[in-house]
């Protein structure tokens, strides 16, 4: 076991996969000699050379398009968005070209698009995006969003080995704040499987990304009142682990869905609808969602703090549900 930060888990996953499979390469802005804006690819060009670590112009369409073209030819590109916000510049390419390769033409297009997402670091409106819902309604791209160093490494390896396109969302707030002992041997985390982070019987919090730590804080607080909270870390948004959700709801009968993207049209809306559709009779209270405000992510710390979900917002929702 080696103590590893979340960002190093990502870096090591890339290095180990590039070692394992010469078809894997990295392409993006400043990923080469600079080692990435966040140093996520530090040391990779020194190890693998400029033939496998490609610095590009500021052209997200070209990055994702070229990665997709190379993937059709049998390569396994990792395309980095310097901030995941810039994936919107490649949205057309991803949803119309990359995502449709299998369904329309039966072609393998095994690319990973990854990049730093999320708020809490005062990145402002163009450096704080949580893009998962933007891609949920355009079928053909798998979406994963790890919250732990273990999942960061294991899910990235699974994403690289997957024969379909995967959007791998990493939370920049967690990069150097999270450290875990990781196994030294090779391991993967399956795409599509949630993880029960904490077992409980009174209330379920369904969450992912950096919000798993907010859920932990709220669960600790509620435990003091004798409330037993189950926390489910979804980890994969597409495909998502419906079974894990329904099983937990069947047990606790009360649900909060907690996510960092804005409330309206967020991934939580889909999960809530599934619960309403398939577990209605198990519910003792309405499904509650705690999410960011329906506005662009504001820059100033007091504004951003008000905008983001936090422990108190989760506690307020939990107490409402418990009193229902």
């Amino acid at each position, binding site marked *: 076991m080696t103590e590893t930060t979340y960002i190093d888990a990502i870096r090591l996953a890339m290095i180990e996969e590039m070692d394992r499979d010469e078809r894997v*390469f990295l392409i993006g802005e400043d990923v080469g000699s600079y080692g990435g804006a966040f140093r996520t690819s530090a040391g990779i060009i020194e190890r693998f050379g400029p*033939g*496998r670590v*490609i610095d*590009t*112009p500021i*052209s*997200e*369409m*070209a*990055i*994702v*398009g*070229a*990665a*997709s*073209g*190379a*993937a*059709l*030819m*049998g*390569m396994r*590109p990792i395309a980095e968005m310097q901030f995941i916000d810039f994936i919107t510049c490649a949205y*057309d*390419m991803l949803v*119309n*070209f990359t995502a*449709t390769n*299998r*369904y*329309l*033409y*039966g*072609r*393998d297009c095994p690319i990973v698009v990854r990049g730093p997402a999320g708020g809490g670091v005062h990145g402002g409106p163009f450096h704080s995006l949580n893009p998962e819902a933007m891609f949920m309604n355009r*079928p*053909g791209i*798998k979406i994963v969003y790890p919250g732990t160093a273990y999942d960061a490494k294991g899910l990235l390896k699974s994403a690289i080995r997957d*024969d*379909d396109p995967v959007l791998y969302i990493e939370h920049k707030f967690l990069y150097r704040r999270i450290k875990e002992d990781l196994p030294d041997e090779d391991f993967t985390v399956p795409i599509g499987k949630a993880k029960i982070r904490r077992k409980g019987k009174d209330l379920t919090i369904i969450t992912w990304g950096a919000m798993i730590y907010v859920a932990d804080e709220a669960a600790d607080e509620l435990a003091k009142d004798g409330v037993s909270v189950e926390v489910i870390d979804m980890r994969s948004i597409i*495909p998502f682990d419906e079974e894990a959700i329904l099983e937990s709801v069947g047990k606790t009968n009360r649900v909060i869905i907690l996510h960092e993207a804005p409330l309206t049209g967020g991934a939580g809306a889909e999960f809530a609808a599934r619960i309403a559709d398939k577990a209605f009779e198990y519910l003792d209270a309405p499904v509650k969602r705690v999410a960011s405000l329906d506005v662009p992510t504001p820059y100033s710390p007091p504004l951003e703090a008000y905008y983001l979900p936090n422990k108190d917002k989760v506690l307020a929702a939990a107490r409402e549900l418990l009193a229902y």
Partner: protein
Amino acid sequence: MTTEITTTTNTHGLSRDELLEIDYYLRLTRTLEDRLVALFRQTKVIGGLYRSLGQEGESVAAAYALEYDKGDVVQPLIRNMGAILVAGAKPADVIRQYMAKGDGPTRGRELNIHFGHPAKDGFIGQISMLGDMIPVMAGIALAGRMQKKNLVALGFIGDGGSSTGAFWEGMNFATVQKLPLVVIIEDNGYAYSTPTSKQTAVKTLADKAVGVGCFGETVDGNDVLAVYDAARRAIDRARRGDGVTLLEVKTFRLKGHAEHDNAAYVPPELLAEWQAKDPLPRFERVLLEMGFAKKEDFDAIQQRVRRDVDTATDEAERSPMPKPEDAARGLFKGDGYWE
């Protein structure tokens, strides 16, 4: 208005058999599209029909300059059916695509000539977002280089498509990387109803090469041998590792955007001028004058084309429609639909 039309007579090392093979593909393209028009009028074509009338010459000639045994890949737009026929697409598959049949290359999921696999077929169809294929072709060229295949990727773009950001991003990236990419930029007069003069202020589309620093050249797109020669030189340059070429072909769309469009916005005298430059008779006139072919050779080719198109039509008409419930399958690997 009368313009003197001069046609290249240098055959650039093409043998008689090769010249006649080019003629076969030219006639195949035109006859297959004529057949699709007939099927369209019989309401057997499900969606729109987009012809390449007048543009068969450059489509066939440029694609003919590639070497598919080296792994070369061609990417057509909707008006380059001739290019994929050269690369090996089956006429029956083209008809199946237009008729939305269940056993066509996309099993009824996509339309017209939007199909093909770059590594398996040597061609890849476009998606409808114009410009998007240029970055993709850059990636195909990049993969070829990484895999040490020495292949060349050749894509088509138009006077309209080259107004998109994706076109510029792809051209710029490929040029910076010195990738083995050739882009044929067609000036066919109109993007749907919009004339080239409202699409761009450059004097000639090859000038767009200046913006990215790649090679640029303009050629008469209705002169088959001139296009072949220019494409061949650009392909050789790409294969040598000397970089990207933007090769402009001056041509003209002799029909509307699609069968439903009567192209009333095209001045009749302009249309007449270009009809006189039709690439097929021009090419055949050269073959006759140079003694490569007699009229009977063309008759024999046309008979073969007719037979091939008849057979393809029969095959496609017999093809089944897709099973409705298959719409739910094959999004990701593993459900057995494509495997």
